[in-house]
């Protein structure tokens, strides 16, 4: 099978899938809001790694033009991910601010405890 032909082949993508699913699992299985945000971060990083992996060309060099280099890796995904990282930290901060505010209002950051408080008459 050609999938296993030449190392690394598709292994990078598979690890990305594993990372993404780890993040996904943390987000849906854990009740703690901070943990959920960490899970989202892992999910996000896996998408970044996916893009950067796609951009790589064998024997390519970093996309900074110089004499004597003919093959460059694809710069477009780099641009997308570069901005996405900074936007990611800004949105993470927004999420954390909401967590702090929720803690002020309910005294807990566990999802189920908040729900229990909501259902109290």
């Amino acid at each position, binding site marked *: 099978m050609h999938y296993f032909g030449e190392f690394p082949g598709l292994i990078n993508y598979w690890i990305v899938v594993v990372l993404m699913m780890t993040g996904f699992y943390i987000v849906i299985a854990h009740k703690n809001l901070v943990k959920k945000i960490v899970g989202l971060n892992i999910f996000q990083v896996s998408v970044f790694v996916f893009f950067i992996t796609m951009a790589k060309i064998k024997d390519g060099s970093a*996309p900074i033009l110089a004499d004597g280099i003919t093959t460059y890796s694809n710069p477009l995904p780099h641009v997308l991910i570069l901005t996405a990282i900074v*936007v990611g930290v800004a949105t993470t901060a927004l999420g954390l601010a909401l967590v702090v505010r929720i803690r002020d209002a309910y005294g807990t950051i566990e999802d189920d405890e908040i729900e229990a408080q909501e259902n109290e008459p």
Partner: protein
Amino acid sequence: MGFMAVIGFAVARLRNLFAVVMLTGIFSLTAAMLYVVLDAVDVAFTEAAVGAGISTVLLLSTLALTTSEEKTVNAGDSHWALALVVATGCVLVYGTLDMPPFGDPTAAIHNYVAPYYLEKSGAQTGIPNVVTSILASYRGYDTLGEVFVIFTASVGVLLIIGRPKFGRRRTHRFAAGELRDSMRQNVILRVVSKLLIPFIMVFALYVQWHGDFGPGGGFQAGVIFAAGYILYTLIFDVDTARMVVPAVATRLCLGLGVLLYAGVGVVSLLMGGDFLDYSVLADDPVKGQHLGILLIEFGVGLTVAAAMIAIFFTFARQER
């Protein structure tokens, strides 16, 4: 990459959130190294400064404000979650079987706009770093949008927890406070950081203004500058740091950066070009492009640095 997967699993299992945050920092640093290996030097720069620096500090401040222990999860729920995750993972792996193998130069994404950028950008913008010229010139609209998102997010943080109200439930957590006090009293930390911080700042400026020739640019410079400043605040004091840069100044810079970026667009519109078309800014289109890119990168740097500092201070101020 295997190392990253291991850290991911550890994060999923651990209950102590403090350890989780530390592991996330290591995770980001590993990711940054991976980006260097995959030729994405600009991205690695950003990830190292953001992931290992700023987001770790933000997560720690949140822990100091809330709690650092997670309660145990309900076992029944997590079996369902695990099954769902494994199923989704299998579908995704099945999807990757159609992907081109790693490093294949004939893959679809390398054959449309990317060769155009690689061939033309050097002559059209006079800038060797292709990432910078795409970011600031060809994809200027996108980047403007991203800067607005950062601006909006930090305004959101300021609105949500920016104004501490009286009578809120605030339990001061001594553990975090003591840690910080011991950091302030530590002579080695104080002396080394005093020596280092000016260099971090100068480095940030270098990354800002040299981003068109080497790896770097507004986003990276902004986060490095903010990280240096946050380091100063951690070692010394929030109030001392606030005297250096008052709250009004960061909020002003936050807006100024976005305005500078959009302003360059409007000026190019007034001078007869399209919005964010820098060719008309100078007599020579190449010089115009270069000038435009420098200006908007400065705007980006200003907004990013101000946003990070403002967000950090909002979190730090909550603790008292």
